[in-house]
């Protein structure tokens, strides 16, 4: 009978409420590629309790969350930046994977990109998830707003910030190109919003407001500098 390896990765066990449980991952077909211990044939000695008995590391928790997001299909083109942001604002760690899973569930067809949004003019930064689609109808923005509203309250109690939006680019197959810095820049994003088809003035205003709102939070006491 196989035992759970003592080398079990922090990604799957360490203190993160939002990480899907191993069996849940299996059911969803998201078996982390490098943690073969959770195979469906896994057997554990009766009564064996696999409990966290290691010195807690923030770096490994962040790494685990990033792996989790990649498993959910999020494209993180500049993981070092996202990693750095989460190290600075670890209060996002217990919710970000849960948010990511909700976003993925709501937008199964979307290409999802996670970046750090930087505004050099005010030295502000926050995490941004861009949902990209092949077809932007009216429903897309409504749904993005709805999903965003769903985690607004929990995010409002955190120092770290995360915005769900779209940059109105079509889904691209080349992951590197699809997340190039040029397209992710604040100026490019605002331009994309203004030029996007199917957007009325109200939608444009609301998207701009969402971004401005994150920037304003950043200029306050609680925001990153």
């Amino acid at each position, binding site marked *: 009978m196989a035992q759970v390896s003592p080398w079990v990765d922090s990604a799957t066990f360490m203190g993160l409420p939002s990480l899907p*449980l191993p069996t849940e991952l299996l059911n969803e077909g998201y078996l982390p590629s490098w943690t073969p211990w959770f195979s469906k044939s896994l057997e554990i000695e009766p*009564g064996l*309790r696999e409990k966290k008995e290691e010195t807690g590391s923030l770096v490994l928790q962040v790494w685990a969350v990033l792996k989790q997001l990649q498993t959910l299909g999020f494209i993180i083109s500049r993981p070092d930046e996202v990693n750095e942001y989460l190290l600075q604002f670890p209060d996002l760690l217990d919710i970000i994977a849960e948010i990511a899973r909700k976003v993925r569930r709501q937008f199964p067809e979307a290409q999802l990109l996670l970046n750090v949004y930087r505004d050099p003019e005010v030295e502000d930064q926050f995490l941004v998830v861009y949902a990209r689609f092949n077809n932007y109808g009216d429903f897309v923005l409504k749904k993005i707003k709805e999903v965003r509203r769903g985690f607004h309250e929990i995010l409002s109690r955190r*120092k770290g910030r995360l915005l769900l939006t779209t940059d109105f680019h079509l889904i691209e197959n080349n992951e590197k190109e699809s997340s190039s810095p040029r397209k992710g820049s604040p100026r490019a994003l605002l331009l994309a919003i203004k030029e996007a088809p199917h957007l009325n003035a109200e939608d444009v205003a609301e998207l701009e407001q969402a971004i401005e709102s994150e920037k304003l939070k950043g200029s306050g006491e609680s925001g990153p500098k």
Partner: protein
Amino acid sequence: MGKKYKNPPIIEAVCEFRLTPDSPWDLTVPGLIYEKIKKEFPHREQRLIQEIELTQGPQGLQQQIRTQEGVLFFTEDRKMFVHIGPHLLAINCLKPYPSWTGFQPKIEKAFQALIETVEEIKGLHRVGLRYINKIEMLSSPIKLEDYFEFYLYLGTRLPQNVANFIVGCDFLYANGRDQCRVQLKPTASLSSERPSFFLDIDYFTAKPNELKVTEAINWVKEAHNVVEEIFEGCINDRLRALFQEVREDGAS
């Protein structure tokens, strides 16, 4: 005295003290500790921490999630923080590592604040000193044995194309009271242009209650010596050259 490097690979150092569950603890403890260390760690934040526990029961694999509220006290630059949870105090230090002479006083200060606050600590359930190193190679593919003295060995009859791996070992110290867990694993795909690895060294007390509270700080110093020795034992001169050793005379 360990070697010094111009580009040390340390991305996190953690020193963690867990008290035995019978030690007194209440909700006022974090605030009282904060009062004693707020000069060094002025920024206070709450954080929810959950632990997943797996148990094999009659119904199969069962998962339990326990939520604990933690408090983090950050330094001004947010590169170091004290984490307080129920019966737990940890001091985490992120990159850039300020050297042991910069980290050790913070550990002592925080631990001193703990023992002044919780006057009747019954015992130490576990103490750990952990260093996470991220070692980034300059090119790909690499042979681990060209850089490490602690690596995955594959016999000639086994496939040599490895997608992923993890190498680990628990070394025994102090007649089995302490252990040092060493793990080497890739941070991402081995096929990436510049592969990188976590070299994770966690020295900890393996038996609850065997280390006295009064011995804890000395234990941490000895643990640090072991971690340094293990680190040097895991790498070879090619990696040392990559980290750019700074010699006593100042040359690198």
